[in-house]
């Protein structure tokens, strides 16, 4: 018998725990010719802001050892166009859709959520409190702002809220503040603030700032998941450098209920399907009947 991969997350049923990370799967529908999107556990859209954003100038991508540093800067069409043009193209896949949003302040977040409140097809909203590539400072660095944003939005919506946190030394403190403010789930964690120096023959030493993702961050993010899981009561989406089924199982065993896959999807969208199949295979091999048996199992030892 095939193992049961169904997971309940913030009251929503996911057919399997593998979802796509924000910003690595477009608005959610673009790759339908290349992979069977219906097979995914769910989709987190590219982060949407109140107004459209052009994003940052070049360079935007640098390959580093076992990872990528990106400096995209939340390029997106803005919430109005997203709802009008793209949302209906995503919901046809009949899998949970989590819309990632970002604002500069409480007021912007509330304006976005009021537009999303009118859409009944959204499973949850992910608050991107941790983009490292904006001119403004990272929201997660300001605990009062984190609290105010979450409580502010919570009063205005019934849509489950997930806070995407920075991989910061005080992540546990941020997680507890977010929980206190009433958030329904956490994503741990975003990319790591990083920098690349381009040493060229002209001795210009051009610097590129950005967020580091890929296998090089995986063990650090897993540790964050493990530490936070012990102390909070809300469920966690784990992410950071998941390239295969084994990586995903590591996150699940450390306390993630769902895993989101980003960089591996940029390399090949097929990796998403492969990861789901590999999880199934690993469970079968180990005679584990349901994925829920292993979630957080490392913490129970």
């Amino acid at each position, binding site marked *: 018998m095939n193992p049961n991969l169904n997971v309940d997350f913030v009251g929503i049923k996911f057919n399997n725990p593998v979802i796509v990370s924000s910003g690595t799967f477009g608005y959610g529908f673009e790759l339908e010719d290349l992979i069977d999107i219906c097979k995914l556990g769910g989709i987190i859209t590219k982060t949407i802001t109140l107004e459209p954003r*052009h994003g940052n100038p070049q360079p*935007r991508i640098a*390959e580093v*050892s076992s*990872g990528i540093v990106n400096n*995209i800067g939340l390029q997106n069409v803005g919430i109005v166009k997203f709802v009008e043009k793209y949302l209906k193209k995503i919901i046809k896949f009949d899998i949970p859709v989590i819309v990632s949003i970002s604002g500069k302040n409480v007021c912007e977040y509330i304006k976005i959520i009021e537009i999303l409140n009118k859409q009944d097809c959204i499973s949850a909203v992910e608050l991107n409190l941790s983009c490292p590539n904006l001119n403004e400072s990272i929201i997660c660095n300001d605990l009062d702002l984190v609290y105010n944003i979450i409580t502010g939005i919570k009063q205005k919506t019934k849509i489950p809220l997930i806070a995407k946190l920075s991989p910061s030394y005080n992540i546990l403190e941020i997680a507890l503040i977010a929980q206190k403010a009433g958030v329904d789930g956490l994503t741990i964690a975003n990319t790591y603030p990083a920098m690349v120096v381009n040493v060229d023959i002209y001795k210009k030493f051009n610097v590129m700032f950005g967020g580091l993702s890929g296998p090089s961050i995986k063990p650090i993010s897993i540790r964050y998941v493990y530490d936070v899981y012990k102390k909070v009561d809300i469920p966690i989406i784990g992410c950071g450098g998941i390239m295969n089924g084994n990586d995903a199982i590591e996150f699940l065993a450390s306390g993630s209920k769902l895993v989101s896959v980003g960089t591996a999807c940029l*390399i*090949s*969208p097929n990796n998403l399907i492969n990861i789901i199949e590999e999880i199934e295979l690993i469970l079968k091999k180990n005679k584990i009947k349901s994925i829920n048996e292993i979630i957080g199992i490392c913490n129970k030892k």
Partner: protein
Amino acid sequence: MPKAFDKNCEIISNDMINRNYFRLKVKTYSALNHCIPGQFFMIGIPDVFLRRPIGIYNVENDVLTFLYKLVGYGTKKLSTIKTGQLSLLGPLGNGYDLKKIENLKYVAVVGGVGIAPINFLANKLKNKGILYYGVRSKHDILDLNIFKKKNWEIIISTEDGSEGYKGYITDLLQYNFDSKHILISSGPNLMLNKILKIAVEKHISGFISFDVKMACGLGNCQGCAIRVKDEIKMVCKDGPVFKIDDISFNL
């Protein structure tokens, strides 16, 4: 637009042409004659994290040929792999609009490895055109047989003067170029910037192909963004071939 595939393909050969360039031939799982000049594939290289975008040099039924320059770690690693399989994602992107070019007087202005898509284009075009081809030195001049076979006029420049005009190929365009021509161009960004300037001054229309770093090739990572008029476009998905009229300066 032909559908892209993402599959492992068998290497037929991967040979050095000269000190900087290699030619890679792979066998795909079905005929790919629908590929359009200017389109590219993302090629997975063992032990290299991201795939590399490489333009199509030629297609004959189920044999795909790529021409690539040794640039950095990825292409150097690729040049060492002689047998086995490579993962290929493609064909990707928008190529040259053959219908718009075919019946006009076309002039191709090419720098270095930019010859790859233009070679494929010349293969598909029935008539002869004019090729302006700029390289560093005569050792960098690649196979121009297809252009010769189709009686193209070929003008070469080398930076060191070892063959043809000494200097940049764009120096020659100032005089030999007018609005009766349609321009097809591919090469380094510095050259493309100069060409755009000349094209705007002389009211010449045409198409330009960009070569930029990209991570996914599918428009998802948004790493290859350029400004086209007032919009941000992705070189991988909206390009790599763009209409000259749409491009702004200073890439």
